[in-house]
């Protein structure tokens, strides 16, 4: 079991953002997380990645309990996330973005800059080669020396994916990767997700574009009003009355939600 989330809960200023969220994922799985706006999906990502501390619940990654680990340590274990707006390092070149993603903190230790410069450079050259290969796959190679901020929205998204490939994590949390992108771009995002899977990287995909979710995910979880209300394949969810109601925006009674969670 790669990821085990159990009973995660978080409230902000008296409002429950996430309640009793549980999820298990195997290595290499692609799981979708859908639901109407405000359901708590992004908060789940924030909690699992460690940017916010949960009120209740635990998160296990591999054999380790990461519930109280800071973000960077979770990342070093192989748990990486993207953000709703593509966050690239703007004034760094595309290649530098790739190198930062590939590099490991021990390599950047201040001491090592001076004690092992040649070894560092050799490692970095290997990374550069690999980065060029990955950039070529994402069709970003010709932009490698451009400052990342000059890329278009779609290209930035692809760069995010390229960086993830460079980082070789075990699990990546994707936060609405196709937001504000054209349908053509969305399809490329879908291909990129499958690319990640082919490399053995597990994916938790938060998305509004349901066709993208359908094309890539083997299992889908639906949230509404801070709780999980259904889980299964896309067909089963389509015929699930609670899911349909949630998306139509009908108010769901607390009672029904707990019934669904218990079912």
């Amino acid at each position: 079991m790669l990821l085990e989330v159990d009973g995660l809960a978080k409230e902000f200023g008296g409002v429950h953002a996430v309640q009793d969220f549980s999820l298990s994922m195997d290595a290499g799985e692609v799981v979708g997380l859908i639901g109407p706006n405000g359901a708590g999906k992004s908060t789940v990502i924030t909690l699992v990645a460690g940017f916010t501390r949960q009120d209740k619940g635990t998160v296990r990654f591999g054999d380790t309990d990461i519930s109280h680990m800071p973000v960077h340590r979770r990342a070093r274990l192989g748990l990486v996330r993207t953000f709703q707006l593509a966050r690239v390092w703007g004034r760094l070149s595309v290649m530098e973005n790739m190198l930062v993603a590939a590099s490991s903190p021990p390599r950047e230790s201040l001491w090592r800059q001076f004690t092992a410069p040649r070894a560092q450079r050799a490692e970095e050259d290997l990374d550069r080669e690999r980065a060029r290969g990955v950039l070529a796959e994402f069709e970003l190679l010709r932009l490698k020396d451009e400052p990342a901020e000059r890329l278009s929205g779609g290209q930035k998204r692809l760069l995010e994916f390229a960086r993830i490939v460079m980082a070789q994590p075990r699990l990546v949390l994707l936060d609405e990767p196709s937001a504000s992108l054209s349908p053509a771009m969305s399809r490329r995002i879908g291909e990129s997700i499958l690319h990640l899977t082919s490399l053995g990287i597990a994916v938790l995909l938060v998305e509004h574009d349901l066709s993208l979710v359908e094309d890539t995910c083997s299992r889908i979880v639906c949230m509404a009003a801070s709780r999980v209300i259904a889980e299964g394949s896309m067909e089963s969810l389509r015929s699930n009355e609670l899911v349909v109601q949630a998306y139509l925006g009908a108010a769901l009674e607390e009672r029904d939600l707990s019934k669904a969670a218990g079912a």
Partner: protein
Amino acid sequence: MLAFITVSLILVVTNCIVAVGLNIQLGYTGMVNLMSITCVAIGGYTTLVLAMPPATPATGLTYVLGLNWPFPLAVLGGTVVAGLFGLIVGSVALRRLRAHYFAIVTFCVAEITHQSIGNFNPLFGGFNGIYGLPQPGVDVIGYDNWNYFYLLVCFVILAIVFVFAEYLRRRPFGRALRAIREDQDAAQAFGRNVYRLQLEAFVIGSLLAGLGGAMLVGFTGALDPGSWGSPETLVLITAIILGGSGNNLGVVVGMVLVAGVITQGLTFLPAGLISNTLLSPVEVMIYGALLIVVLRFRPEGLLPERPPRDVIKEPRRRLTAPHVVAED
């Protein structure tokens, strides 16, 4: 005339040492450090109290220590103490990772330190300060050529510092700092311990600020709170932003322009044009306006930062023919 230029250059060069340090904090890592000048002062004061003889009532000065150390050792001491100061403040202030909290806290530390040192005479002479350090090495060099000698020493130190900063910039460490500047959260998401990297950058900058202060004090022989307040911090920041934050050469150019040209140039204007008493306020007004204008219309500065180029070093040419594997 030459003597005047030499003096100006010494002031400019020592300030450049500080500026390169601040560039590592502000230009590379994006930390707005409003207590840079405080580290300069701490470096200067420490150097003074280490190099001078113990305070006696006869001189009318009061300060701690007074160990009569040789000047180079005192400079080392000043640098280290400034770095320690930065370490202590940074380790606490950087816990709150948000940029503007950090800026305010550094400003507070600058104010508190300024007020405390000014009001507490026994430490560094209070508002009178400390003065009377003899020119280091003057008994060997002689008075006539001492200025040129000292300028040379400062210049060599700046060159070393410059190379050091450039080296860091191109290494993974420098790149990690710049990633933090661009997007801290993404840097964390890729495994960077942002707190630790920022702290390291902050300490390096503080060390260099102390070094600059120490060398400055070797020239002026004196230091008092009047010369390190918020206007001086503004001058440093203006120099860096004007020259090009993130670009070490730009920062040096910016400092030359700001400290050198503007300051010295103002002294050349006809006395009737600007009354002598207004010289300082007019200078500061110019810096303030310059800062705002540059940030608005050319925030990258005169010499913008240029990411290091992507080149893979060619493998060394083989000296012998490649070994041919015989076919099986």
